[in-house]
């Protein structure tokens, strides 16, 4: 084995939970990702264990995602979502009966969703525990993610930066029964001093984009394919661009292959509302249902001219792409091992939701990658701790402030579309620190108000809102979330200062924004 490949999946969704609505459009993000990614990946990992295929995978699971996956209301709604998919499948079996092109696809989806519904039942709806049990088997390394996915380069107060990491570690320990060994910094966002926070939290390693190490000072003598130690002792691993491009690139990447399932063409948009109505928004707003009968067909083919999907052909193509990926990593290792004086490391991180949600065949691809990797000798799949245990001596350098966003720095999150939020976020950070200092011995009600203020601040700091504003996907929702968390925080601030906390409103707020029930406001002291 001439080198190590670390496959990393970053699983995160912003905290979206609206008990005040019977149906909420943005809650679908969780249901869709659960059905398309988290459950299928669970199947893949269990299958590898069952077949005794030696493998390694690192997954980050963000605290908001874990909170939602463990939330009783959202678990009930996820189960109901799966039920609707099964019912839609039954109707599709009737509607497509006799249609040679689409009846098999209706069967394919119906069977799939019934199987996933069974899986969800069999794990008691507890996806987090199911992944935790896989971690205990030793092949899966689950790491944590900064608090509410706060982008460190735009946080101002040291207490806020630290709180994001402390919350991440605490949440992880409660979910997985052990402290995390590594952390995914949201958006791979690195700013000066973050490494010390990582080390102070007892974490061994984090990830940066390629130029985070490539532009580090002093220049890392071993280049991008070895970790560096920062002066704090935390290790930084650089994202490998070559392996990333093969999957990420919309033009050159595997997911754009003509045989793969098309994401955009969906029954939610194809069928008349009197047919699909029960399976979309109750007000008739069309949404993706997960029943997608067409394949990519070609890069320039418009939606109306897509060809029917062939799951068998797509699975075959996923296997071919897996073979290509494994061979390419072998070639890359051969080249690197001739250039480097030590065992090279290739770190390939991806958004977990790419696998399954966006790229339907992604979990199959990963399954085949790990099976094929187990059959070759040119590299081994490894976790970052295994790399560090093998080579405990590393060069020391300060990573370059960076992110994995477009442009490589903070331009996605500091942009004309979203920069209005920072004045408010920073002021709330300062106020939180002041409130905690001024309430050293809070009453029980004040303690709850301080804790809730911390939750609202954490939710306000989520990088997702700025990202959505920049990419213009659900802008009004993101703007309203920022405004709502800010106004909740400010009301708590006013009431704490006045010594008049509205207990009824606080209890209602605690029941709605209910993540991190054990949160301790003294994190901001």
């Amino acid at each position, binding site marked *: 084995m001439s080198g190590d490949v670390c496959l990393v999946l970053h699983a995160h969704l912003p905290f979206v939970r609206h008990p*005040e609505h019977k149906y909420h459009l943005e809650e679908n993000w969780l249901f869709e990702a659960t059905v398309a990614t988290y459950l299928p990946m669970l199947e893949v990992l269990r299958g590898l264990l069952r077949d005794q295929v030696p493998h390694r995978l690192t997954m980050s699971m963000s605290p908001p995602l874990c909170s939602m996956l463990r939330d009783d209301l959202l678990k009930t709604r996820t189960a109901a979502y799966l039920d609707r998919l099964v019912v839609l499948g039954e109707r599709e079996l009737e509607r497509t009966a006799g*249609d040679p*092109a*689409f009846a098999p696809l209706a069967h394919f989806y119906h069977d799939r969703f019934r199987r996933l519904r069974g899986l969800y039942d069999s794990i008691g709806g507890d996806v987090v525990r199911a992944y935790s049990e896989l971690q205990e088997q030793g092949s899966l390394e689950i790491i944590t993610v900064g608090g509410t996915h706060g982008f460190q*380069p735009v946080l101002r107060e040291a207490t806020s930066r630290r709180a994001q990491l402390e919350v991440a570690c605490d949440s992880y320990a409660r979910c997985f029964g052990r402290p995390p060994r590594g952390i995914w910094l949201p958006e791979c966002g690195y*700013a000066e001093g973050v490494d010390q926070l990582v080390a102070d939290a*007892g974490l*061994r390693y984090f990830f940066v984009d390629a130029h985070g190490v490539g*532009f580090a*000072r*002093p*220049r890392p*003598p*071993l280049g991008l394919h070895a970790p560096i130690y920062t002066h704090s*002792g935390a*290790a930084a691993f650089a994202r490998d661009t070559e392996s990333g491009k093969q999957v990420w690139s919309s033009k050159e990447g595997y997911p754009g292959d003509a045989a793969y399932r098309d994401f*955009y*063409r*969906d029954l939610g948009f*194809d*069928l*008349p509302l009197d*047919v699909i109505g029960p399976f979309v928004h109750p007000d*008739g*707003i069309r949404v993706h249902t997960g029943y997608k009968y067409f394949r990519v067909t070609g890069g320039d083919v418009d*939606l*109306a*001219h897509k060809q*029917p999907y062939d799951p068998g052909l797509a699975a075959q193509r996923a296997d071919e792409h897996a073979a290509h990926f494994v061979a390419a990593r072998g070639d890359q290792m051969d080249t690197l*091992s*001739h*250039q*480097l*004086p*030590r065992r090279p490391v290739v770190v390939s991180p991806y958004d977990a939701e790419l696998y399954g949600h966006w790229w339907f065949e992604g979990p199959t691809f990963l399954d085949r990658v790990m099976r094929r990797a187990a059959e070759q000798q040119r590299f081994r799949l490894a976790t970052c701790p295994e790399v560090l245990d093998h080579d*405990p*001596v*590393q*060069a*020391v350098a300060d990573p370059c*402030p*960076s992110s994995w966003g477009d*442009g*490589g*720095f903070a*331009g996605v999150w*500091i942009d004309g579309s979203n*920069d*209005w939020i*920072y*004045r408010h976020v920073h002021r709330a950070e300062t106020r939180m620190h002041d409130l905690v200092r001024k309430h050293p011995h809070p009453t029980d009600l004040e303690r709850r108000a301080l804790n809730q203020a911390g939750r609202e601040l954490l939710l306000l700091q989520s990088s997702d809102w700025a990202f959505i504003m920049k990419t*213009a996907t659900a*802008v*009004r929702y993101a703007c*309203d979330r920022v*405004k*709502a968390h*800010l106004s*909740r925080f400010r009301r708590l601030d006013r009431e704490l200062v006045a010594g008049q906390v509205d207990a009824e409103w606080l209890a209602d707020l605690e029941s*709605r924004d209910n993540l991190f029930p054990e949160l301790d406001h003294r994190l901001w002291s």
Partner: protein
Amino acid sequence: MDRADVLLLDLPALRARALSAGLSEDLVNHLDRDALIEELRGRAAAPRSQSGSSPSFVTSTSPPAAAEPWTMLDLEEPPETYDELACEALPRDPRWLFVYWEAPERDIAEARQRLGSPDARLTLRLFVLVTAPDGIKRHLRDVEPGWAHGRRYLEIGRPGAQVRVALGVRSPEGLFAPLCESQAVRMPWSEAGAPTSENQWLEVRLDGASGRPRLLSWPRGITKGTIQVGSVLPDWLKHLGFDNTPSSSRRA
């Protein structure tokens, strides 16, 4: 992500696209950007024509999608200002710095009085420190923001520099009275550092008792020298335990 084709369009272009897609002018003028994107997406997703192999069961397209009914609890517009002094800077990329500021009128008046200059103007003063081979260079630049509160992007143009911004007033004679200042921030570097012969190496092992990472001393006294691609010193590698690659891959 799923609407990439229309996401890149600004509002006028979206309206033009919507009109060409057959939406009424009245509707187009009443929809905001989000709603237009949703509308276009709905139309794009619906089949425009039936090819021979397209499914016969696709019987109609959707009616125009309504904007989502919306109520966000506790929603209030944030204040325009907080009536507090503020000045903060965030590096956007190696060259550009994002700055926001707020100076209440009473603070501006007090600073003018301190200077004895009623004509002193609100100013953002940039302190830029650049580490150069011949030492640290200091640069100072003044920008008049024009408004008592706001935000803007300032081109620093010096990757890797350390920057701090002070908000204050400046007299016509150039005297400056600060009101508040930002934290010092580091602009990202835009290129790899120069090769150096001063590499440091660190050994970190897990503490047996706590399981937490424990820094050991700089290993075996080696703090100087170069290990670079293609110019490796074999003795060093052996000493450091790096002796795990084919000998043909190395040259002294």
